[in-house]
């Protein structure tokens, strides 16, 4: 009986049961739908086994949007619970689970997936490549991420969600204080998707270093590609730390070791330390691609080249290294001496300098420009002041003595949402709108898009600015309730309204996709935005092989150059194109990983062993496999190009 108890929802509430039913119904509907329309074959051939970077990118972004919905609902529930004093919408335990999953889902499964999806779609196009360096590995990365995300979401209905905060500090996250399997889910969901992320990192570094079009030196790469390169460097060196921390956490919870226990020599501070050695670079992993997108968008819609290209690159390189030097500012209050705190306070503030350079460069890019207020540009313009506010509050937090007062308060919550939402979320929406025609061949509706932007921005300000004040008034974060006398009530209510506006914005954005799909004219042409970088030199939507002829490039704004100065991007003739074959191995292997993770969470060792054998079987299959890919013939290329209206 004990065995089965672990699978139960440890925290039954009507809300959870209702969502269980909803999930089950949706799943059944999806399965019936696919069967009815006989789409299983199509799904398998075209999507589940695909190694095409554009499709993998799309799947990342679709998953990211789903996770945004999940994390967003969590967020709204938190704001609703704290909207008024002594609210009883959620109880303490439920609230704890909600803010824990909100954090993980938003950072790992939403933001990371969004940026990786964006990189997948854009980077090969921007450097004139046919695909990424290791297309098969790319598929494995996606499916591992997906397996991790699904594993994490299963926790919600089987066995219970993690409840120790997304930072998961021990000993609270140890078995003494967190008895359900929730934290086990945390360990394995992050471990599996982290593995996928690490592979993405390697894949994109090699892609960018080795697959650039002829003529594209490093200093002639578009800025988004630069940001992707730096981001992936950070991924490669940061994620192994998480791997080890999670391994140690798993051993502590499931094998009775004492890494982070307070007995037998263990040290709870080590978890916090390792978590943030990974966690701080992680912040820059999220923000740098966003910076890249803003650089592209601002240059395009100011109709000017990016100001200070070299200093933009230099500042990113600097940030990549410095991001590994500041992690202690996440726990200034852990009782280190003022010496340690002083050192890390200074390194933290120093990062503001390269970041500041970027802000000024964007402003100077608009200078003497010809600014068009399209939706992507609106997000970029909204980003600058909001992110500046988030950035300067970050500098305030970096002052160690003052941090003793901000730490663990709503002030901190306001700060990091203030950098992540205008930083990452705005950028992803800008990028989504900007590159949408590239992938789908039609534009998103500008009017609805603008409404979405205004709801999101105003909602954001209403939701998060009050938190700076409640934080200074002593409201700790992660409190599921507070009393009337504290006086936190009105501002929290305001936050809730802001969150509501943000929810409306999300609905508008999703509706916009549907609306535009139905109503937008197709065949927007090759260059709907009057853009500048190489990805616009091919058709919309992009054909399977990206570029019919390998482009030859002479500047970071190769496409602009070809438009204005008549530079010939495609001097060569058609040649047959080598493409990788699709493969079912990645998705099957990720399936084994899911079973592995799930069995491990519940310590079902037979399942663990069988799944591990499955994983190794997939690897062995891969190494013995003799797959040389396939070729697209010149005739086929000509045919396709004709369909797009003229050979390029």
């Amino acid at each position, binding site marked *: 009986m004990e065995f089965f108890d672990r699978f139960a929802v440890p925290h039954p509430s009507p809300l959870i049961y209702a969502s269980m039913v909803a999930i089950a119904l949706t799943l059944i509907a999806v399965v019936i739908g696919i069967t009815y329309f006989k789409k299983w074959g199509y799904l398998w051939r075209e999507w589940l086994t695909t190694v095409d970077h554009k499709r993998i990118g799309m799947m990342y972004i679709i998953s990211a949007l789903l996770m945004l919905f999940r994390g967003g609902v969590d967020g709204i529930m938190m704001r609703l619970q704290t909207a008024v004093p002594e609210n009883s919408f959620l109880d303490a335990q439920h609230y704890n689970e909600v803010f824990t999953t909100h954090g993980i889902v938003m950072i790992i499964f939403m933001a990371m997936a969004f940026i990786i999806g964006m990189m997948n779609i854009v980077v090969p196009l921007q450097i004139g490549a046919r695909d990424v360096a290791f297309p098969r590995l790319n598929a494995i990365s996606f499916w591992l991420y997906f397996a991790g995300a699904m594993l994490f979401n299963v926790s919600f209905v089987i066995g219970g969600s993690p409840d120790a905060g997304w930072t998961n500090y021990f000993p609270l996250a140890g078995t003494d204080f967190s008895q359900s399997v929730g934290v086990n889910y945390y360990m394995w969901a992050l471990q599996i998707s982290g593995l996928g992320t690490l592979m993405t990192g390697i894949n994109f570094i090699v892609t960018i*270093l*080795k697959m650039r079009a002829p003529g594209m030196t490093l200093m002639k790469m578009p800025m988004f590609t630069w940001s992707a390169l730096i981001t992936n*460097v950070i991924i490669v*060196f940061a994620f192994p*730390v998480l791997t080890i921390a999670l391994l140690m956490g798993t051993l502590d919870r499931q094998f009775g070791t004492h890494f982070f226990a307070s007995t037998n020599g263990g*040290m709870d*501070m*080590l978890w916090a*330390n*390792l978590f943030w*050695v990974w966690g701080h670079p992680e912040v820059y992993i999220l923000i740098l691609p966003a910076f890249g997108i803003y650089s592209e968008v601002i240059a395009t819609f100011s109709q000017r080249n990016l100001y200070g290209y070299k200093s933009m690159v230099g500042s990113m390189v600097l940030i990549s*290294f410095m991001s*590994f*030097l500041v*992690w*202690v500012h996440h726990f200034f209050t852990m*009782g*280190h*001496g*003022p*010496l*340690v705190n002083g*050192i890390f306070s200074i390194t933290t503030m120093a990062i503001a300098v390269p970041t500041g350079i970027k802000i000024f460069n964007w402003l100077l890019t608009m200078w003497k420009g010809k600014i068009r207020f399209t939706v992507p540009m609106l997000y970029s313009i909204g980003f600058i002041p909001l992110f500046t506010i988030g950035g300067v509050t970050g500098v305030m937090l970096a002052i160690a003595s003052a941090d003793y007062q901000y730490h663990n308060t709503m002030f901190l919550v306001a700060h990091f949402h203030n950098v992540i939402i205008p930083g990452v979320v705005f950028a992803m929406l800008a990028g989504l709108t900007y590159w949408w025609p590239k992938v789908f061949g039609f534009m998103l509706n500008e009017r609805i898009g603008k409404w979405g932007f205004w709801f999101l921005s105003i909602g954001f300000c209403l939701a998060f600015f009050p938190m700076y004040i409640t934080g200074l008034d002593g409201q700790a974060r992660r409190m599921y309730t507070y009393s009337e006398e504290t006086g936190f009530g009105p501002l929290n209510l305001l936050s809730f309204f802001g969150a509501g506006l943000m929810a409306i914005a999300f609905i508008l954005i999703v509706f916009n996709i549907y609306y535009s799909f139905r109503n937008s004219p197709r065949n927007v042409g090759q260059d709907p935005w009057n853009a500048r970088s190489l990805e616009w030199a091919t058709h919309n939507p992009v054909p399977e092989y990206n570029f019919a002829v390998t482009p030859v490039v002479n500047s970071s704004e190769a496409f602009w150059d070809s438009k204005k100065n008549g530079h010939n991007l495609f001097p060569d003739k058609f040649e047959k194109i080598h493409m990788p074959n699709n493969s079912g191995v990645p998705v099957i292997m990720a399936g084994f990983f899911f079973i592995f993770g799930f069995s491990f969470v519940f310590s079902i060792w037979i399942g663990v062993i069988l799944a591990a054998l499955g994983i190794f079987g997939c690897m062995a299959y891969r190494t013995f496999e003799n797959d040389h890919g396939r070729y697209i013939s010149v005739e086929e290329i000509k045919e396709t190009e004709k369909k797009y209206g003229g050979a390029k």
Partner: protein
Amino acid sequence: MKELFPAKQVMGFVSSLLLTVVALCVYFLDMSFEVGMTILLVTAFIQAALQLVFFMHAGESSDKKAIYTNVYYGIAIALVTVFGTLLTLIWGYM
């Protein structure tokens, strides 16, 4: 037969054995902690460099810049992590 044992690799192997013997001195001879650690640091890093250059052919391809940058970057960050962690959790306390 001789062509199967290039001098460079044999040299590398012999020197790594020698370095191991030197490192073993810290166990067999009596010395202070500081001297011992210095010996270990020197022998370990030389051995690692030997492997990198003689056996792993790090500098032979056209990507050698990327490869060396990557290795140096990794070592730098790893050292930052090790010493930063020690500073934060052990040495830095008041």
